[in-house]
């Protein structure tokens, strides 16, 4: 079952949504309701004023074209590097600067406090927030290499 969704991209690269009541909303913003616990359950379009103008219980229920636009937009907006390896940390007491290898390349992040490491509903998955508010994802800490695991353990 698909939910009709009249979504297109205009010349400025912005998303334009024509609602069922005939109103056209420019510069809408696709969002996920449960980005961490169920990324594809509950997606919405917010108008430029931050009001919900469209809702679909599941991404898969959108027509092909709209879904592609949603996904394109999510890829650009959801910056969440996945930590693949922790190379080194400056100290085991926070604030601590971590040298990490992510799926988007090597970088350093500053962990302000142990509380910024958040356990996700998926077992073993962790979300690390750095001092700038960027979130790094660790998909499964049990599958990191032993060196990274040893470091990580000191912070959990």
């Amino acid at each position, binding site marked *: 079952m698909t939910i009709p969704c009249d979504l297109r991209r205009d010349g400025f690269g912005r998303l334009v949504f024509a609602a069922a009541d005939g109103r056209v909303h420019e510069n809408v913003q696709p969002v*996920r*309701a*449960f980005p*961490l616990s169920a990324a594809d*359950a*509950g997606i919405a379009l917010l108008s430029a004023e931050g009001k919900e103008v469209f809702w679909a219980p599941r991404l898969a229920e959108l027509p092909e074209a709209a879904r592609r636009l949603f996904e394109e937009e999510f890829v650009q907006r959801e910056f969440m590097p996945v930590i693949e390896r922790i190379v080194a940390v400056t100290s085991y007491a926070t604030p601590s600067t971590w040298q990490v290898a992510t799926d988007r390349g090597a970088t350093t992040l500053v962990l302000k406090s142990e*509380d910024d490491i*958040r356990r996700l509903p998926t077992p073993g998955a962790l979300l690390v927030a750095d001092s700038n508010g960027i979130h790094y994802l660790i998909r499964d800490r049990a599958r990191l290499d032993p060196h990274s695991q040893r470091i990580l353990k000191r912070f959990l």
Partner: protein
Amino acid sequence: MNTTPTLLQSAPAAERETPLAALDIDLDAQLAFRAGRLVLTPTHVIDGERRWPLAGGLSLAHHDHKGIGTLELLDGERLLARWRYTLSHNPAALKFERAFNRQRDSLVRGLPPEPPAAATCPVCQAPLPSDEDECPNCARELHTPPSTWVLLRLWRFARPYQGMLLTGFLLTLAATAATLVPPYLTMPLMDDVLIPYQNGTPIDWIKVAWLLGGLLGAAVLAWGLGWARTYLLALVSERIGADLRTTAYEHLLKLSLEYFGGKRTGDLLARIGTETDRINVFLSLHLLDFATDVLMIAMTAVILFSINPWLALVTLLPLPVIVWLIHIVREKLRTGFEQIDRVWAEVTSVLADTIPGIRVVKAFAQEAREAERFRAANRHNLDVNDRLNRVWSLFGPTVGLLTEIGVLVVWGFGIWLIAQDSITVGVLTAFLAYISRFYTRLDSMSRIVSSTQKAAVGAKRIFDILDHVSSVPDPAQPAVLPPPSGAIRIDDVHFRYGNRVILKGVDLDIRPGEMIGLVGHSGSGKSTLVNLICRFYDPSGGAIRIDGRDLRSVAVADWRRHIGLVLQEPFLFFGTVAENIAYGKPDATREQIVAAARAAHAHDFILRQPFGYDSLVGERGQSLSGGERQRISIARALLIDPKILILDEATSAVDTETEFEIQSALNNLIRGRTTIAIAHRLSTLRRADRLVVMDRGRIVEIGNHDELMARQGHYWRLYMAQSKQLDAPPALGEEREAS
């Protein structure tokens, strides 16, 4: 109460008079403590020498203020007498008043006094169970101090592990026995090998090998057994500690708000955290050591006596002195450790007070004062510790000194015995080997004193919580609560908090689906009434009935399941938005959560959060504004679909625009539910079917907005006062957007 006072017998006319009721009073007119007694006979009220004949115009008035009750005898024109008493006599005073009224009425009408109606509780007036003479709701205060043998009560928590404990004990026994073997083997080593060698006999190497092998074997055995029992008992004690902690916490959660109102958070934190841990350490380390020590001492004594009774007697001579010393010190330490615990709770309390109130502290620039308060608490802590350590530090060295003297005596007496040829050198060596072990154990045994005291204090404080019965107890056989219609009947409800009277006889009938607006000055008892309906407290008099059923006859949790509560300060737990909305219904689906959030007008701003419904809120997630937090708490109340909805100043903490949003969210919420709304801002109650105006613990007006305005009474005055405020520009920017 029925004994005839001597005063009565001395009065001439009183010989035939049998007292019907008596009231012991404990204050005089100047409010000094002095015992007195008020007696009611069939014809008179008697106070010592003063007597008043019962007559139609006579009446007793009863009221109380600040913990002091007053009973006044009036004859319709003037005050005849006034008695005062502390409130512990209040039930008796009420009883006296009832007996008085009954007797006077029967005299006036010439009828025999009617027998008292079905027994009711003297305190709360609730009917008593037929076979009991104490009200189960009121007879719950504990006045007995916890016994000093409180540690034995830990057995309740140890029982599930008794098999493991027995194994542990047997292992301890075996391990201790194994450690006693080596000194025994030094005897033949000395007498049969070394001394003969000095006298010219060659060393018997096979014997030496056997003896050394035995020594090694005993040591290895003791090591193995010791490991096994330490591990086993540590395992058990951890589990006992964990059970203790969870039981205490579960019990704490069941206690009424009254209990939490009277306790400091820091103190409760310390009790459940630190004290259980201390008990834990005591059980796993000190108790184990103590058991080992006792076994060791007993076994050593037996061995020593079997080798040589005389030398054994001399060796054990300092033992009674040390036992006596332990006893003395224990007395001193017990009070000290209790004091330390209280001081420690004080230190934690300062933290627990200050940290949540940090905005106030900073706003009033009182950091230095708070630091000083903390320093003072710490200084107090130091003082108490210093005093204690003075005794404590003397204790260890004294035991050490006694040990040294003991060894000296054994040497001296041993040498004398050898000179007499009554013992061999080997025996003396064995004794010296034993005695060193013996006294080191005695020394460590003396340390048990402090940890036992600490653990006992900890246990007492834990059992303080466990022994505290909830003041909103579940009935023994809770009535089954059918789905309520939403009708609530408040029947002559009185409420007293400590010695402050808050509600004085409130009567109100709430129809199913009705919206009631509670209005009144702060302190008029609105919130108390709502708390009573939620059964956070029980009324001190009267009853609240739901569909004709006394609230006290159903299980608390059953009732609260039907109540949705939205408070002025929405409390969000640490967790995601979705978890917070689903707090009252953890198995809610995502669709239900989203639907509830939509209805609460929270959906849009939740979607705007970086992680949507997965965003963290609560203690560390303070990025939400007051209005947003409030709407999350409305969604929470909506999700459980309650029959009765209580809004306690739900919109007071937000600005007018947000209030408008919340108001439309609330309109979704109140549809089809009995709603009781408290609001300071009268405009928010426009939709109420009836407005109930309260003043100083009483309902003074009931009606809808127009009726009450027409009456020009309390409500009208409140309304006018507020609309005047609205006309004039506000003098102060009101603080909005809670932290």
